[in-house]
């Protein structure tokens, strides 16, 4: 899995104009995806996950928002690219699927037309092959009767089928990067697992990079090669899936993992993260915003937040220094940490 | 005690709506001007007309006909019967408003009542009402109105109010029915049921407040539309008698191209008043709708 980065985002920032005021929704985000890699972006609602995805697609409305930093997609700079340049890249270099597969498909167009539109705007698939390629794609995403489905309209399909169609559209031009923004949140668990497996299969088969956005830690654990944790528009921690789940560093990551109901917590109370996410207008991104919710910690670690993340383990980055001293208020120590020996890192 | 509590509750709701409305109107100067304009016209017309003796606008003065404005002390001139146009305008506006205000009240009241009931109870009740409105809505309204007005030999403002209202409630009922249907889907309705509230109480104290801003906005629009309808009927010659002039009868004079060009004072003030009233009401309606949207967007 070593190679050039497919997606290389450096210090990406996104501001929105809300009631005439510019507010920062994304701050100094560094992320990269290599071919064949699944990067999971996790975080609570409103943390900026979709905002990042849209920045990669350059789909933010230029009048209402501004994007700073650098986003390289397979050697193309996206920040500041013209609409024409982006049209060349979208669908070819990067495909995207969305959370709600019903509203993301045009209700008035046949499935085949929507897939073929993908091909028609680029020159990758020759016109004679559109039809066959469409059926092939549908088969590839696990639709049993491609001919039938191709002639149907979105509302005639079940949620799972629609999401499959979305995937077919996204991969029609064989993009190198697939962005999946909460692709299974609207689906039942059984369907969810099917879709996730499908994404994984396609990813493996075509050796493409996947940016998977989700708030479900289970999904992350099942799917991701590497993980980035987002809080209030900042990446607080990133590393391989193993690093994140077995050796979470940032207080937010650790709190999140602890709040998840699991076999261990079964008859106990769940861990509750104190406080609430600040509003967009109250965010000071120069600081580590999560630390405001850890009132029991000393103050120095909170104020001193270096701009560049620390890398305590190879490939494992974490924002700020607070992780070094963070302890749960009740003295709780995670099992993995007990096993791995907390001291090792804390020293 | 219970009552006080309720009043408090009610006032705190209307208070917040009022606040939002005040905010909106402060921001939207056009709507504010419109609002004060309407208030001034309504008050001016109704209070002013109290001081105008009936003779002043029914008596024909054969010597002073067709006077241009400002002649012989007639501010807006006189008409072909020598009646003072300004007094006529005040009385006409009063008569037109006396029709369009009650019509608006009737159709909005009937509309919200039936719309809420029909959508809330649904089922057979709703089915029946929908069939009735289906039936009524295929009737060419204006044509039937004219027919009915030829039948009613002796009618006054109130007859006209009832006749116009007879068909106009349908669209307002449908509007509120659709809104209620959407509102009824909200779980708070179920929650209220489980809290032991009666259907009537749910309809009027839970659902209605959520329709109220649409209700105000819709009322403004309906009012404007009714002024238009009344004047249209008068225009076609089916309005009120000469001794009860309305804005429509004044505007009607412009059908005579000669009057239109040579004596603009006979029809222009009334036309401008209609226009100003309609447009003001539309601006107010839009502002009220924005008040409603604002709350939704805040939510």
């Amino acid at each position: 899995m070593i190679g050039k980065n497919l997606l290389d985002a450096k210090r990406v920032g996104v501001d929105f104009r809300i009631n005439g005021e510019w507010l920062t929704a994304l701050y100094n985000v560094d992320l990269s995806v290599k071919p064949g890699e699944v990067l999971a972006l996790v975080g609570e609602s409103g943390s900026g996950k979709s905002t990042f995805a849209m920045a990669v697609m350059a789909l933010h409305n230029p009048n209402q928002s501004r994007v700073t930093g650098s986003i390289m997609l397979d050697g193309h700079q996206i920040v500041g690219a013209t609409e024409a340049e982006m049209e060349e890249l979208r669908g070819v270099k990067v495909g995207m699927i969305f959370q709600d597969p019903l509203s993301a498909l045009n209700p008035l167009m046949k499935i085949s037309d929507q897939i073929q539109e993908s091909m028609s705007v680029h020159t990758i698939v020759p016109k004679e092959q559109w039809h066959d390629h469409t059926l092939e794609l549908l088969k590839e995403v696990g639709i049993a009767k491609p001919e039938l489905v191709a002639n149907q309209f979105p509302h005639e399909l079940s949620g799972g089928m629609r999401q499959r169609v979305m995937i077919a559209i996204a991969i029609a031009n064989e993009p190198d990067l697939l962005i999946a923004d909460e692709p299974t949140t609207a689906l039942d668990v059984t369907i969810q697992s099917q879709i996730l497996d499908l994404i994984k299969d396609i990813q493996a088969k075509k050796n493409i990079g996947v940016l998977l956005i989700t708030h479900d830690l289970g999904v992350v654990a099942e799917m991701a090669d590497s993980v980035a944790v987002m809080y209030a528009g900042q990446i607080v921690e990133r590393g391989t899936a193993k690093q994140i789940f077995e050796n979470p560093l940032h207080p937010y990551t650790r709190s999140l993992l602890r709040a998840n109901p699991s076999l261990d917590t079964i008859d106990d109370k769940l861990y509750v993260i104190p406080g609430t996410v600040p509003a967009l207008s109250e965010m000071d991104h120069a600081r580590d915003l999560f630390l405001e919710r850890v009132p029991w910690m000393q103050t120095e670690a909170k104020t001193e937040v270096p701009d560049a993340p620390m890398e305590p383990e190879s490939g494992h980055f974490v924002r700020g220094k607070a992780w070094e001293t963070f302890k749960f208020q009740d003295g709780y120590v995670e099992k993995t940490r007990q096993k791995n020996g907390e001291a090792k890192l804390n020293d | 005690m219970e009552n006080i509590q309720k009043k408090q509750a009610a006032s705190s709701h209307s208070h917040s709506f009022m606040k939002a409305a005040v905010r909106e109107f402060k921001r939207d100067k056009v709507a504010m001007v419109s609002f004060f304009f309407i208030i001034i016209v309504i008050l001016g017309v109704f209070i002013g007309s109290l001081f105008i003796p009936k003779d002043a606008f029914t008596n024909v003065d054969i010597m002073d006909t067709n006077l241009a404005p400002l002649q012989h002390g007639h501010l807006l001139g006189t008409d072909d019967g020598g009646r003072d146009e300004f007094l006529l305008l005040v009385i006409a506006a009063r008569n037109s408003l006396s029709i369009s205000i009650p019509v608006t009240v009737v159709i909005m009241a009937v509309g919200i009542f039936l719309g809420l009931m029909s959508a809330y109870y649904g089922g057979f009740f709703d089915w029946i009402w929908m069939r009735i409105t289906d039936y009524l809505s295929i009737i060419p309204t204006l044509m039937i109105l004219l027919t009915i007005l030829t039948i009613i030999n002796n009618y006054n403002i109130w007859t006209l109010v009832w006749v116009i209202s007879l068909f106009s409630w349908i669209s307002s009922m449908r509007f509120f029915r659709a809104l209620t249907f959407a509102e009824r889907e909200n779980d708070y309705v179920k929650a209220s049921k489980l809290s032991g509230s009666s259907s009537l109480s749910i309809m009027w104290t839970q659902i209605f407040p959520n329709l109220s801003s649409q209700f105000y906005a819709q009322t403004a629009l309906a009012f404007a539309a009714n002024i238009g309808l009344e004047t249209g009927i008068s225009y076609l010659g089916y309005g009120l008698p000469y001794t009860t002039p309305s804005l429509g009868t004044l505007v009607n004079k412009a059908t005579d191209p000669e009057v239109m060009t040579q004596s603009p004072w006979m029809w222009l003030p009334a036309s401008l008043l209609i226009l100003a009233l309609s447009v003001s009401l539309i601006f107010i309606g839009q502002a009220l709708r924005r008040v409603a949207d604002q709350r939704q967007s805040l939510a």
Partner: protein
Amino acid sequence: MWKLILRRFLIMIPQLLLMTVLLFALAKMMPGDPFTGRFSAHTDIHTLLRLKREAGLDDPWPTQYFRWIGNILHGNFGNSYVLQKPVATLLGQRIQNTVWLGLLTIILIYSIGIPTAVAAATHEGSFRDRFWTTYNSITGGIPAFVMYIFMLFLFGFTLNWFPTTGSVNIDANGFWSILGSRLYHMILPALSVALFSTVSLFNTLRTSLLDARSSDYVRTAKAKGVPNRQVFWRHIFRNSMLPVASTIGFDIVGVFSGAVILETVFGYPGMGQLFVQSITTRDYTTMNAIMLFSGTLTLLGSMLNDIIMSWVDPRIRIK
């Protein structure tokens, strides 16, 4: 589909029947009858009474009603006692005039309303947007007839650009010349309606364009790399036309019911003008036929809506 249309037709029948009862009752309650207009010192009142009797106007109401209905069911709308022609012939000409005028009006409304709504929505918040939005709220609020009179006077009489009476120039000969003359006669009334009636189309389309613009499927299309123009026309515009299409039937009906005032002002010999005349001359047969026609039209309009909707919106399929 055909079955549904048939069923809708069957449903129309009781509604129309009920309507005929109402119309008949109203007509009978009106003072005077078609023969009062023929009254003069040199017609023998006994002759008038005889003619009235022969026309069946002295029969008991139920007899008259059922005869009327029976005739209608046989496609016979009776004779206009005033204009002394079969109502069908009479209406045929008038309806043609009204239909052409109505069609032109609708075309004009659409060709004014759609581009302005598109301009406003694509430049949301700009001067253009504010201008057209204000234009529509003002024109939508003015009582129509005031504007009709104004337009007639300005363009018809003062500037002399358009004919002010009739539906066709008597001197026009040959297909093209007649067609041209008809169009020429319709332009002013049609334009007068269209210029002041775009408000609902404009508002509906503008709102749905704005909604569609931020919809998920548009985002999907953009993510495919579809160029903006194509996104606009294939996805945003097409989908936004749905709510517009859903009102076409009612628009048509609206234009026809507006004919009463419009044709009266412009002296355009259509159905609306005929209606006002028939009501003053108590020409029941004509009057009722027109109202019945309008009612049927409304029903057909709402049926047309359903058909259009099921045709353009695959989500609505008639079972």
